[in-house]
Structure formats: structure tokens, C-alpha cells
């Protein structure tokens, strides 16, 4: 009985993984790009006003993200992420663990919280 359960569940798992692995072949994202044209530009001073856990903006790779609603879901400890609220955090984002950047998954997830372009000080 348990042997059959093991075989059945393992096959079902690999079918599901194979289905997810081929999403890039059959799923085409739509509606991207138009929104970026109307983006606001956010200055370092504006960014710095949003440095609390409940109101946390970060500038990463030239864009600003409002991560207030995402922070509770971030897997690492709060004391690792919270100090970057209200700041330019590209370096921290790119050197998450032993110098490695965040994953493509994180890049994809981050895009959801984008609120504008970051106006760097000349």
C-alpha cells in the first residue's frame, strides 16, 4: 500500500514539476511595459521618508519599490532587511548571501512592488 502511494505520489510530483518547468513555452505575459511610461521619479529625500517597517520603500537597481506589504513574508530575519528601508539597497540586494544576488524568482516578485524610478543625486 505505502509502496504504491510512494510510486503514485512521486510520478504525480514530477508531472506537476514538468508542467511548471515548461510555463515559459506556453504562457506569454501580456500588458507589461505600458505602465512604466507614466512612472513617477522619486528623489533620495522622498525615499528617506519611508524608512519604517510599516512604510518601507527601497531603491534597487534604479527603481523604487514599496515593500511595506511584502516585508512580513520575507524569509530572512527582520534585522537583516529593515535597516535598508528608505535607502538605496542595490548592493544588499545583489549580495544577499556570500556575495550572491537574489534569484530570478525574487526579481520577478520585486517587479510587483515597483512604484517609480529613482532619481540619483548627480
Amino acid at each position, binding site marked *: 500500500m505505502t509502496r504504491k502511494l510512494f510510486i503514485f505520489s*512521486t510520478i504525480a510530483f514530477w508531472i506537476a514539476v514538468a508542467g511548471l518547468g515548461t510555463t515559459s513555452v506556453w504562457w506569454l505575459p501580456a500588458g507589461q511595459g505600458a505602465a512604466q511610461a507614466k512612472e513617477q521619479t522619486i528623489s533620495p529625500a522622498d525615499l528617506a521618508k519611508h524608512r519604517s517597517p510599516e512604510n518601507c520603500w527601497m531603491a534597487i537597481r534604479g527603481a523604487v519599490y514599496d515593500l511595506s506589504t511584502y516585508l512580513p513574508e520575507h524569509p530572512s530575519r527582520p534585522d537583516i532587511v529593515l535597516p535598508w528601508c528608505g535607502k538605496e539597497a542595490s548592493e544588499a540586494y545583489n549580495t544577499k548571501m556570500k556575495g550572491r544576488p537574489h534569484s530570478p524568482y525574487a526579481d520577478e516578485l520585486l517587479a510587483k512592488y515597483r512604484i517609480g524610478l529613482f532619481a540619483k543625486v548627480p
Partner: protein
Amino acid sequence: MNRLRFLWLPIVVSFLVGAPVFWAFPEGLRFWRATAIVLGWVGCGLLLASLLLMVREVRLAIWLGGLERMTLWHHRSGVAAYLLLLLHPLTLAADGWQESPLLAWQVISPFSANWPVWVGWGALLLLMLGLSTTFARHLPYGSWRWLHGLLGIGVIVGFVHVLLLGISMAALLATLAAVLLLVWRLIRVDAGCAAKPYIVNSVHPVAQSMVEISLRPLATPIVARAGQFIMVAFFHGPHYRGCGEYHPFTICATGPGAEFSIGIKALGDCTQQMQRLEAGVAARVQGPFGEFLAERPATPQIWVAGGIGITPFLAILRSEPLSQPTRLLYLFRSTADAAFLDELQALAERDAHLILEALPTGAGIPNVEKLLPASDLLSGKECYLCGPPALIESLSRVLKDRGVGEQNIHFESFDFR
């Protein structure tokens, strides 16, 4: 088994599952992400329970209701953990799917530059490989045992995955507990540190491919009752080279000076080799375990033995006269396989309570419907079964069909793989 001892095992498993889930229960997260986290922690708790249940200690076995029950729950909790841990990445992907199907794949893709994901995949693949070899029963026991060890490595790698996610305290405690249990098992059980030294005193052939071995203690002996079982490994003697693997054997007689004897039937490579055992071979003994036949009520009884399964019944008959009417049905392939038959017939002549029926059944599982008494003769009787798992299954089914309650059917199957 009293009710408290029956409840201890589910209580311990529930604690090991419930404590991490209570500690890490997600709040304010989306449904699928919260579900994935809960599944991960329930899987971790079940893996810890499975590790605890493979520790073979006498006191622990008594506390948790016996080694057979522990082994059964070890299997159940291990497979349940595997199923939930398969669902863990899929539910994480389901959370990503709410944003976009591409994100769903990115969550679990092993091609992302992400150590926690790589290590998580590594753990899952080790569990998958370890379980697939666990179910490969045709493997020789020695190879099977080492491949089964992949599961232990998979569990540790799985906890490293949790540590890499930055979940510090609970993951650290769980990883330490898993390492401790694995080291405990390796040192106390597999390396034999919990075993007592014995030496083979005498060897007597009792049937085709079956010998009775008498063992003498070399240090503090184990305290065992006839009919309990022990785990014994045989090492080297004057002309014998043992395989050193621990196998279960029933104590079929106890003697003076804490000596005892066991019956060994050639059922695999190692037990085949044991047929050539000689006096003076070093042995190590773990146990005793089991309480089959220990708490027999005063009601009439039916005992059914298949082949080597006669040993616990023989042990009781050798140790004391019966106090309740007992019918012993002894099934064996052919007369050449009928171990201890002459002795059993002599015991039946002396003991008015014992009725012996000895039947050669040929190869394969016999038609037990013809062999077992009719329903009216089974009414009010306690049934004790010992033999190959397929025979026990067949006997139990027919007994239940004939109205014997599950609580009145007792068996010991020695299925420790």
C-alpha cells in the same frame, strides 16, 4: 497493552509535529504561502518522529508500546513526511501562480542561483532515492541498510535548507535533534555499543536449514523472558566468519547462568551463513523486546505457527505448564522442515491443556480457510499468530471473517525493514 502505553506514541508524534507548527505558524500571509510553510514544518516534525522511532532502546520500546509498533510508525511517519514535503514546493509554486505562471516556476526552479532552493531540491531527491531503495525488498539486507541511510542524509540536508532560509532558532534545534538521533542510532544500535557480549555455547540442527543456538553471557546478561525476541549479530569464531548484521530472533529457552537459546532459519544470505555457526563464535545481543504471549488472559486460546514462527510458542511451553486450554496449529512445508516436532508432541502428551495439530502444507501460503476452526469454535477464544507476513495476513483476514474481534487477534511479524 494498557491505554497509557498505547497513547504515548501518538502523543510523542503529535508533540514533534505540533511544536514546530505552533512556533512557526504563519500569520498575515497569503493562503498558499502559509500552507507551504505549515506543510514544511509538519514534514520536519514527522521526520524527527521517524528518526526517534528508529532508535532501538529497550526502555524506549517499552514506553512506546514495543519495537514492532515503533517500526510501523517509523514507516508511516516517514512516508507521510515525504508526501507532505513533495507538496511543500508545489504549494509554494501555487502561491507564485497567483501572480503569474512564470513566477510559479521561478519559485521552485533548481536553475535559480539560490542556495536554499538547491539544498531543498537536494534533500527531496535524497529522500526520493532513499525511499525508492527502501521499497526495493529484493535488495540484499546489507546493501538495503546502507542505501536506507540516504534517508538520514536527506533529513539532515532538509534541515540545512531550513537553516539557509534564515529561520534560526527552531531550525537549529530541529537540526541538532535530528543529528543527535542519527548519531544515537549509529553508535548505540548499528555500531552495537548498546549490545551485550555473548559467546555461542552450542549449535544443534533442528530441521532442514534451521539450527538452535545456545548463547552464554560474557558480561552483564540481558534480563529476558522466554518468548521475547532479541537482536543478535554474530562475528568471528575459530573457523567461522560472521556477517556482523543484527537480526531478530525469538528466545526459545532460558537456562542456568543467564544462558538462552534461539532458533535460526536460513531466510537470507546472512542467516544462511549462520547455519554454519560453531561453539566459540562471538556474538552481541540487543534487547530484549516484545511482549507477544506475555499478557495472556485465562480464556481458551488458539495458537497458529508457520515454520520458524513456532519458536515463541515453544518457549512458553518449555518454560511453564499451560493454565488455559490451548490448541496449537503448527504449519510447516514438509516433515524435513518441522523443527522441534518431536519435542512438541512430547510436551502435548504431558500437558492436558495442550492440543497439538501439526500439518505439512507444501510450498506457498496454505488455504487457511480449511485449516482454521469454524466460527462457533472460535467464539470466546484468544488467537495468537506467528509466521511469515503473508500467512499472518491471510490468517487474520479469515479470523475476522469468522467473527473474531481485532482485539482478540495477536501477532508478531518481525518486519523490521
